[in-house]
């Protein structure tokens, strides 16, 4: 399926109204040729994973600036496993200390990005990850 666009679900979990970062990243991914399903504000981990399931997304991207990243990323990752989406990438960004990033990485969360990161690095990371993790047809 190398020719088909990468599909990414982008959302903001929880009570956090700062969506400029999510919009900038979504736009960057679109300009890189990806199909982005933008969920917007005040999502729950359940609603994000349910949307990713119906959309058959390759990637879930969360934006968390509220400080609740440990809760949200952990919960979304757990739900992904539970719903059979463990083979997809969970990535994202926000104000996330390195120590927390390491803890989350150990739980299966992918690379997380922050202020000052080059948006193109996100594109490259997603492209490489998807290339290295081809999906199998059997469900």
């Amino acid at each position: 399926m190398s020719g088909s666009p990468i599909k990414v679900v982008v959302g903001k979990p929880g009570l956090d109204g700062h969506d400029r970062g999510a919009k900038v990243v979504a736009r960057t991914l679109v300009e890189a040729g990806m199909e982005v399903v933008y969920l917007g504000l005040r999502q729950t981990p359940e609603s994000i994973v349910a949307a990713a399931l119906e959309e058959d997304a390759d990637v879930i991207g969360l934006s968390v600036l509220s400080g609740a990243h440990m809760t949200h990323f952990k919960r979304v990752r757990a739900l992904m496993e539970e719903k059979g989406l463990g083979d997809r990438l969970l990535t994202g960004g926000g104000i996330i200390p390195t120590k927390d990033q390491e803890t989350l990485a150990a739980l299966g969360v992918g690379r997380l990005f922050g202020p000052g990161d080059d948006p193109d690095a996100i594109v490259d990371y997603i492209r490489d990850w998807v290339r290295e993790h081809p999906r199998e047809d059997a469900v």
Partner: protein
Amino acid sequence: MGTDNVRIDDLSNLSAGVAPALAEGLWTSFWAGDRRACARLISKVENEPNAIPAIREHLAGKLGHAIRIGVTGPPGVGTSTLCSAIALGLADRQHRVGVIAVDPSSPFTGGAFMGDRVRMDKFVGDDRIFMRSLASREGRGGLSPSTPSVADVIEAFGMDRILIETVGVGQAELDVMNTADLVVLVLQPITGDAIQSMKAGIIEAADLIVVNKSDLPGADTVLQSLRFVYSLGSAKSGKAPPLLAVSAQQTEGIEELVDTIEQLSTSIVQSGRHQELRQMRLVEEIKSGIVDELWQRYLRQSDAERVIEEAAKQLVASGGSAYKFVREMCSKIQLTVDPKANA
């Protein structure tokens, strides 16, 4: 290998162009009602056109009962919000509802920003409704090329009402007319005067017209000009389509709208129109299927792609006629049909 005397009437390789069969597990899960399998199958249909014939063969016996309802209108009139309300209304009337929301792909990058779920967040996780966003990809008529097949997958999954929301349209994006059983056209106040409503195109294709955002000033003017235009007659059915004023956000008029959609659905089934539309779509599907199949066979048995490239290059330089070249190429193809085949 040249293009001389290519035979495309050889039936021995009928399925040579069809992609490998899907894993058995996927179909088992799909028929067992696994939403993940449904989502995966939709991706197959979107991404692997070669796999569509085999997939549709699997689905064939399960199709023909769902009502496909196209929802279309100019950008920003509130089609997504309205679709969300209609989907919930239909689910509350004991239907299982599929929602296909198409948003535009960039002709420059191929990427797409799909925002319909922002307005459709009331039924996430609701088992009665299956929603899918589609990027329009190569589609230029308001839908993506795979939309009819995606609707088939969703219908076979068990949905009996399928909402198909087009990209925001102008005046003549009419794909929806050939894909849906009913067309709902959504407009809003301050949308132009009667002159706009008098133009040909999408306004003629509507089975139901909804003026959304009717809580805003100007709704009466739009309703009035539409009533005037339809009083002159309608090209599609001869009679004026129902005209409703609603506010999707204020949830005003939604019950009446869903009831009207239900009435129209019942009436096209009872009148036989539903089967007639399905038959018309099948005719088109068969025709384009034959064209695709013959074209694929032709490509497999020749290096037509290269010959066409080369010819185009020469035509640019020489200013010759493309149609003359087409006639020459076609004269080298032997297309014979067994006379018994059409008996």
